[in-house]
């Protein structure tokens, strides 16, 4: 114990000294075009919790790849050769995210913060970005609030959101013939939002929601709802579930137990990541449809990048890794075009910008609400028998064009000013 305490106090004393040494000055160098003579990209995300596999430390690697590619592309013409990547773990705690974000902007001179999964943490950091007038590109969080009522001039939302997930799956599956739906959703904000978007999308595509039920959260017994499904009149074609994480795993296990697929009821999932399929194995989810923001094995462009990523990290990239790469790259490109890292100039470079990169196809950074819209994909999980290589889990059924995939800018209630 004594040694632990000593080590602890030594660590504390050291960190206190270090912080004191940093002084309380803001970012220096007023006239320089690049503040502090360097560009600092900070990745603030979950490196140990639920989102660690989806994004985590490997997203930091992805951002480093972007920096290296940017330097290679521009050589001496780059706006600055001094580009740094730093990172911090917010442990999915919004208070830590909030303090760390302030510290990253103030003390570590971060010019942009990337990623930030967990919606409460994501929104807290958005408020910091707004107060500090510094850029923030959210990738990991799903809440549409970031580009809705809580949007602000310095916050961008990059990869996906609840609307895109629900709308994409709801309309695409309905168009493919799944007309009658039974929806179960966890009874909290995320689930309720997803349910609303789903219902709207299904209705707009000519389908009907026969019944919808809120479920407790967290929950490990979904048999009530699974038993109800086949007894509904008329019998639904699709069971739409908005559960996530461990609850989704429970639900899928029980869906298979009650053999609903054999009874003609397919499963569609609101929020699913490739890491979920990987951890449980494709057979658990085989035949399930969901919307993915990006899939590594979609085409050669993706595969090439994925191979480079795999060489560094020994794992296949999720959409979040690719999005972190892409967001970092687009940020640096904007700085290059603006010739400065001053926030307001970079924001005006980003707003309305149209591009097409490895991650974001047919992309536009919407000026009205800072939602980055791009093509997304309706995917089906392959059965194990069709899986040919590691992580080859998805069959892309349909590309959902950027304009259809995301919530219209006018619908979110965002006013930037």
């Amino acid at each position, binding site marked *: *114990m004594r040694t*632990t*305490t000593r080590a*602890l106090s030594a*660590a*504390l004393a050291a*960190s*206190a000294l270090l*912080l*004191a040494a940093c002084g*309380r000055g803001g970012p220096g160098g007023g006239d320089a075009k690049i503040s502090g003579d360097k560009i600092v990209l900070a990745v603030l995300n979950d*490196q*140990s919790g639920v989102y*660690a596999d989806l994004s985590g430390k490997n997203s930091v690697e992805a951002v480093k790849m972007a920096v290296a590619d940017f330097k290679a592309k521009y050589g001496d013409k780059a706006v600055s050769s001094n580009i740094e990547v730093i*990172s*911090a*773990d*917010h*442990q999915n*705690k*919004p*208070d*830590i995210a*909030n*303090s*760390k974000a*302030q*510290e990253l902007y103030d*003390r570590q001179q971060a010019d942009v913060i990337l990623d930030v999964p967990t*919606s*409460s943490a994501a*929104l*807290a950091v*958005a*408020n910091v970005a707004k*107060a500090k007038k510094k850029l923030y590109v959210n990738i990991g969080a799903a*809440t549409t*609030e970031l580009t809705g009522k*809580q949007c602000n001039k310095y916050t961008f939302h990059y990869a996906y959101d609840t609307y895109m997930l629900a709308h994409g799956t709801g309309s695409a599956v309905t168009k493919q013939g799944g007309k009658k739906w039974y929806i179960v959703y966890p*009874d*909290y*904000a*995320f689930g*309720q939002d997803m349910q609303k978007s789903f219902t709207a999308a299904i209705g707009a595509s000519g389908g009907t929601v026969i019944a919808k039920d809120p479920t407790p*959260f967290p929950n490990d017994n979904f048999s009530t709802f699974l038993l109800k499904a086949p007894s509904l009149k008329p019998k639904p074609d699709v069971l739409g579930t908005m559960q996530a994480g461990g609850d989704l795993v429970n639900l899928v296990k029980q869906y298979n137990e009650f053999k609903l697929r054999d009874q003609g009821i397919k499963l569609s999932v609101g929020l699913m990541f490739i890491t979920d399929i990987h951890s449980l194995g494709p057979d658990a989810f085989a035949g399930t449809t969901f919307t993915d923001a990006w899939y590594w094995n979609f085409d050669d462009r993706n595969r090439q990048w994925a191979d480079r990523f795999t060489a560094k990290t020994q794992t296949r990239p999720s959409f979040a890794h690719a999005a972190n790469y892409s967001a970092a790259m687009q940020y640096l490109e904007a700085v290059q075009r603006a010739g400065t890292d001053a926030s307001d100039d970079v924001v005006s470079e980003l707003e309305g910008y149209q591009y097409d990169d490895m991650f974001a196809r047919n992309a536009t950074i919407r000026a009205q609400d800072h939602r980055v819209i791009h093509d997304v994909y309706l995917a089906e999980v392959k059965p194990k028998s069709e899986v040919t290589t590691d992580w080859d889990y998805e069959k892309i059924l349909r590309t959902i064009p950027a304009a259809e995939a995301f919530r219209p800018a006018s619908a979110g209630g965002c006013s930037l000013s």
Partner: protein
Amino acid sequence: MIRMLLRHTEPASRPVRSLLLATGLLLALALPWLIYPPVAMDIATWALFAAALDLLLGYTGLLSFGHAAFWGTAAYTAGLIAIHSGLPFPVAVLGGAALAAALAVPIGYLCVRNAGIYFAMVTLAFAQMIYFVANQWRDLTGGENGLQGIPRELFGLDLSDPFVFYYAGLPIVLFGLFCLWRIVHSPFGHVLVAIRDNPARAQAIGYPVERYKLLAFVLSAALSGLAGGLFAISHGFASLQEVYWTTSGKAVMMVVLGGIGTLWGSALGAALVVQLEDYLSTSGFDGIGLVTGTVFVLVVLLFRQGLWGAARQVAAAVRARRAPRPPTPAPRAPAEPMPAPSTLPR
């Protein structure tokens, strides 16, 4: 009960106490110069929370494992008041504390009828209920998005700089700690200690034990609420994290680490845990539970008097050595066992 840790060190002499108080105040004032101001503010708010919890654990002998209910309720309440009324933030914080106290009345009424370990389990369960309510009551709490964008209003002053805000919030923390100090040293506080040490005797003398416990519970909840409300204002949001059981656990950890029954120890424990979390978030080491859990287990096993308690014992040993009397044997002597508390007839 917890008492065995407490009575073995003589209270420090008056000049020592004044010196301690002066040092403590100075440190509180200098904190944002030494460490990053938002972290300093966290230390201050958690210190108040831990000290308020210690009023129950250390001075009343009740382990509450559900104080997040009060901290979190106050955080949401203070946030809602600040957002919707535009009143100065101390009013919002006081409003949060008031609601936390109000919530503590029914919960406390049900909990204080049970003592010991039962009390810990029941408080934990009630806090979980508050968590589920907060999660479902989305219109009010924002669900898992949290209640965001809480302003810091104070007569039009610009408090956006966390360095400035620290000094605006510190008086609230000091006020809370002063309240605790007064409670502990009041006749009421002495009755609490008597109840902690021997509830049956206190009852026999004629004190309405349950009513005293309930009052202590409500006071502790109110002061936890004061801390929780300030926490929400300082971060600009309140989230479900604030009502989750891990928050209760974190506060308990601070109290035990610093030393049960020592208000100074709670502050020390808060400083350590907050700094440790902050340090681990950029260290690249992802086993925060492993570190805090191990430290905690070791403290409970070997170091039950906590850091402050240990410091007090050392101080007492030094004093004893200086004194003409033969020195007392060793600083570790007191903390050891007492037979299991017999199940007293009620």
